[in-house]
């Protein structure tokens, strides 16, 4: 007996018992429909995440941080993310590009509006990576020294521009407050209610021989001089302005491990602001002081250290290999590819939990199959006897019933996939309508990938065949002599 014979006979038998077949198949159908609709929710989210990762090139992006001194007992192994570190990271095999997170506080002016924000320096090569190249309008800037900027969609909205295309080509004025040492020194010498001569006159020259007095004068005058310097340094900043052309507008991304600011400018353009003086932000100054790079910042950009560096690497190289090399160099690494693996594991557990629920429903449906098949044996006892008298062996009879169970499972599964998919379409349409109403992008929450169809088919048909084992074994054991006996 060929498989074709078995399938034809099975379909024929099931077609004869339409109502019973329909009811039994419905059990499988409901179980599979529930399973498919639940898993397709997980699959939809997983697909969306994967698309987002791919769109941003995150599978080949890694973030590098200095090891926190709190997290390492060996302070000697603490390394700064400075220029030397960038060179070392760039030399790791498979690394295509290394660029630091480097941003300055600016006041942006577009038309008549101004807004305080941050400008991030990014080399052209970085801007051309997937992470930054998904522009809503325009294109990346031409070179590392071009007077161009890429701005976020949110920023142009603040300036009253609602279509990204209309922002491209417009002038953006950036103003940076910088503290220059000159204004600090000028403040020491400046006349602030009393002249230097007045201050010198207050000193009793004859008493300078006394140690206590001398210490007192040095302390008070030193403090006053430092106060005057800081007052001039911090409160009398210079304002550096530059006019750039908006080259592109990009989508906003908030949160996550990727730090991107509202304005992206070429590094040499950013250098014009930072070389003019120290950042006007006292916090930046104290951070530079603690890092030991306060004076290096203005004079030697190579001496700067960064809080975060981004690595773009070859997709053929494993993220783990790059991470191991980064950690071996004394830094902490965050791999998006490895994070995705972790997320996938969570999805897997989620799917497994839903799968168990589906299996329970399917198990219940399988009891219906067992019942139907056992009834079928009782009714077809004589037929089994005839088939055996015609030369069917036990395996033929067993296969006949197993295939019949499998056909019930197959029909139920195909129907279940269709119904499950229809349910997801309805729920998705309702959800998308709600999202649109809330001003959110309408995303499809569900997906029906091929693997889900295959899993549903194998589960539905597999469980049905397993359910058919007992009836099939019972049918194969039917004694033909008893079955053919005249009543």
């Amino acid at each position, binding site marked *: *007996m*060929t498989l*074709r*014979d078995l399938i034809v006979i099975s379909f*024929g*038998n099931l077609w*004869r018992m339409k109502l019973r077949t329909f009811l039994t198949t419905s059990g499988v159908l409901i179980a599979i429909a529930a399973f498919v609709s639940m898993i397709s929710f997980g699959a939809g989210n997983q697909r969306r995440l994967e698309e987002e990762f791919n769109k941003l090139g995150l599978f080949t992006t890694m973030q590098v941080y200095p090891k926190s001194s709190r997290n390492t007992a060996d302070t000697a192994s603490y390394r700064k993310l400075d220029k030397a570190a960038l060179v070392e990271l760039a030399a790791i095999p498979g690394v295509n590009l290394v660029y630091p997170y480097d941003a300055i506080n600016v006041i942006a002016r577009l038309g008549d509006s101004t807004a305080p924000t941050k400008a991030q320096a990014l080399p052209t090569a970085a801007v051309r990576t997937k992470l930054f190249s998904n522009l809503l309008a325009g294109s990346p800037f031409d070179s590392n020294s071009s007077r161009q900027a890429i701005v976020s969609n949110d920023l142009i909205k603040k300036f009253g521009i609602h279509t990204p295309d209309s922002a491209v080509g417009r002038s953006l004025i950036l103003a940076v407050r910088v503290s220059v040492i000159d204004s600090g020194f000028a403040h020491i010498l400046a006349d602030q209610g009393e002249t230097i001569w007045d201050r010198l006159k207050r000193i009793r020259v004859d008493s300078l021989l006394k140690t206590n007095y001398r210490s007192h004068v040095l302390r008070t005058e030193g403090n006053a001089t430092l106060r005057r310097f800081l007052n001039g340094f911090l409160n009398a900043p210079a304002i550096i302005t530059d006019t750039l052309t908006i080259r592109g507008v990009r989508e906003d991304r908030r949160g996550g491990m990727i730090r991107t600011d509202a304005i992206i400018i070429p590094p040499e353009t950013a250098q014009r602001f930072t070389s003019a003086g120290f950042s006007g932000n006292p916090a930046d100054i104290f951070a530079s002081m603690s890092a030991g790079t306060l004076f290096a910042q203005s004079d030697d950009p190579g001496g700067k250290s960064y809080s975060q560096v981004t690595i773009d690497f070859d997709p053929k190289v494993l993220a783990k290999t790059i991470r191991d090399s980064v950690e071996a160099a004394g830094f902490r690494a965050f791999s998006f590819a490895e994070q995705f693996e972790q997320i996938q594991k969570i999805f897997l557990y989620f799917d497994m939990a839903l799968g168990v629920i589906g299996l329970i429903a399917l198990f219940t449906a399988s009891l219906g199959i067992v019942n139907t098949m056992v009834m079928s044996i009782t009714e077809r006892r*004589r*037929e089994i*006897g*005839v*088939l*055996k*008298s*015609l*030369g*069917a*062996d*036990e*395996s*033929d009879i067993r296969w006949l019933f197993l295939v019949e169970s499998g056909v019930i499972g197959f029909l139920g599964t195909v129907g279940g996939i269709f119904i499950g998919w229809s349910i997801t379409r309805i729920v998705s349409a309702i959800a998308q309508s709600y999202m649109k109403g809330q001003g959110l992008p309408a995303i499809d929450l569900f997906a029906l990938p091929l693997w889900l169809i295959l899993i549903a088919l194998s589960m539905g048909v597999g469980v049905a065949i397993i359910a058919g084992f007992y009836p099939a074994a019972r049918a194969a054991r039917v004694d*033909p*002599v008893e079955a*053919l006996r*005249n009543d």
Partner: protein
Amino acid sequence: MTSDIYLSTTNLCRYYHRGSQTVKALDGVSVAVGRGEFLSIVGSSGSGKTTLLNLLAGLDSPTSGIVDLAGVPLSAMSRRQLAAYRAHKIGMIFQSFNLISHYSALQNVEMALCFNGTSPKERKRLAAEILERLGLADRTTHKPSDLSGGEQQRVAVARAIVKRPEILFADEPTGNLDFENAQQIASLLTALNRDGLTVVLVTHNLEMAQQLTQRTLRMQYGRFVESQKTTGGRRP
């Protein structure tokens, strides 16, 4: 045993246990069926005729004794080999026709070819051909319930012989038929035997057995009590 013996039994016993009671359905039966012979086994109900037929067909296993098929004991065959024996070498006809009620006449006949490796296309051709030969060409699509008793039994005969078996077992083939249809079936069996088919006919109709067959064995209480050479049929 001579070389033209096709099937034989030696001291064949088949006992059934009903509680503490042992029912001896067959009790030491020995018989040899020659190739091309038309043998009839007669006896009253419960004499063990059908039990013997089931043992000869390999559908049942003896309590003791041997069924020998051309030198090979059936007891030495595996279940699969016994099924192959039924699929290739024997045809069976039953008193109650035993057609599968939801299949057409053609499908019932085709079913006999499902287990001997005949291709689906060839099955259909052979089944249609044999039904036409038995005068049922216009009944191929009919279900058994749409056929008369005689037609049903002719479909059953077609099913039994479509695979060109070496031996045909007919268990009361005319038991449920009127005289005219019974005569038709009897003529059919004779014709098949004349074409060289070995036939073992089980019946309680002694007169028909004597008319049709060359040898008649009478059974009583699971034993052969009489063997009679008769004039019917074709000499082997």
